């Protein structure tokens, strides 16, 4: 039975691709509602795989996962879709629909959930203005710069005020000013109750914001709190 205060629970979760070795082994994780975590680990440590389990893009090879107190082993396809609507994801490679405008990309989560078009217009315009993309609203995302695409991707992830926000290197393609602004957005969302997990390599961000760190090492997951960050020692993140 999962704890209702936890957004995500993982028990003895393992993941492997094909017949290869496990990339993640015996992962145990309880992510409290309203928490903020950084996800760190060397390249290839399994950060993207762990995130993909969290945003329900794949099933674990073994173990149990509960998201919003729903055991995923028993969730049908429509239930999975409903759970995904409560999760916002920012990808390192943006994953925008290139032939659509910035507006239509950001509107996507609202449209799939059947929101009224007038409300969509209001919300999307407001958010794109906030991320300083109001001048590019009707531009196809294929012609936007990397930084602009990143902001569109972030706007899409937060447009429906998700309960859980997962971001894979969200500030990797933007300058320090925009990065600071985006981090403030994540912090604000977290204050409003959104649980946030950000995978990052940026020491600056980790040091600027004193949040606990989920660290992947040797196929396992270790949690470090700001007070014992020194325990990481020479681990490169």
């Amino acid at each position, binding site marked *: 039975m999962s704890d209702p205060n936890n957004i995500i629970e993982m028990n003895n979760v393992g993941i492997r691709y094909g017949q290869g070795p496990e990339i993640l082994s015996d992962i145990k994780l309880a992510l409290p509602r309203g928490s903020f975590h950084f996800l760190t680990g060397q390249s290839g440590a399994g950060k993207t795989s762990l995130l993909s389990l969290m945003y329900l*893009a794949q*099933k674990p090879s073994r173990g149990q996962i509960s998201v919003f107190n729903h055991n995923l082993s028993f969730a049908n*396809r429509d239930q999975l*879709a*409903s759970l*995904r609507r409560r999760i916002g994801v920012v990808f390192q490679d943006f994953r925008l629909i290139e032939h659509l405008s910035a507006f*239509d990309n950001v509107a996507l989560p609202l449209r799939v959930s059947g929101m009224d078009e007038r409300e969509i*217009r209001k919300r999307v315009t407001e958010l794109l203005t906030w991320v300083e993309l109001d001048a590019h609203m009707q531009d196809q995302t294929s012609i936007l710069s990397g930084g602009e695409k990143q902001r569109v991707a972030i706007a899409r992830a937060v447009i429906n005020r998700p309960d859980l926000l997962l971001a894979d290197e969200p500030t990797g393609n933007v300058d320090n000013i925009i990065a600071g602004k985006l981090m403030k957005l994540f912090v604000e969302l977290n204050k409003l109750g959104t649980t946030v997990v950000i995978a990052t390599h940026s020491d600056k961000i980790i040091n600027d914001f004193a949040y606990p760190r989920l660290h992947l090492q040797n196929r396992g997951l270790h949690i470090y709190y700001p007070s014992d960050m020194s325990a990481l020692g020479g681990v490169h993140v």
Partner: protein
Amino acid sequence: MSSSSYIARKQELPLKGENTSLFLQVIISIAVFIFAITLSGVLSVDSMISSWNKSILGSLTVQIIPVNDTDKEKARAETLAYEEKAVDFLKSVNGVTKVTPLSDEQLNELLLPWLGDGVDISELPAPRIIDVRISPDADFDFAQLAKDLAAASPQASLDNHKLWLNKLIAFADGLNLIATTILLLVSAITSGAIFYTTQMSLGLHHHIIEILHIVGAKDAYIAQQYAKRMAFLGFIGGIIGLFFAVPAIFFIGNLALAIEGGIITEAGLNFGDWAVILLLPLFSMLIAMLTAYYTVKKTLKKML
């Protein structure tokens, strides 16, 4: 920003520009063309049978077998006497509205195509024929009527045309079965083409479908986009197929009318038949839409 810019919202899946669209339209056009021609054939045969049925339902034929005697005059007189007895009997039967023994001239005319000109019917042992009209509401026991007739006039035999008609109906049913098989095959081939092109398209747009799933789209949301597109292709393909089929149906109809014999002239399409044929683009639209919808649903089930 003007509100009109929102109206031109693009579909998430760029199905309009796909190369397979033209292929599908051609397939559907050909399918609807074959479908329309075959269907018009089925409907014509049905209307022909119905027409024969109608004309036969209100009539009976009584045949008087000629008396065999070396004295031809005597034989003819006896045959005519049997004919008279049969006429008297038939006139007394409830539900019989008109009894008309065919004259020598009429019998000559009937036999003319087989015996040629200049043959005197009175010289031949040809049966006499009585045309009997009956009320359409009359409920006859034909077996009993035939017995009573034979008792009243032993040389008389009754033909209610059912045997002849049943053979024709069996033949027409055979034609209809072949036509139905063709219709099913055409539908199956069209559905198969839609199934495979939809699957190809799903593979092509895998990355977009993945994004749609991640933002919480249900399979039905994606399936609807395919269903809409295929419905459009199905309808346009149907219209094109029909555009070529209608003149072809008229052409075949004219060829059939040119056949002498009177049987084929009964074949024709009525208003209802034409309505069914003209509705074929809607049918092709429905088939395309449903095939695409369920193909997408089935295929996506294999994804997480």
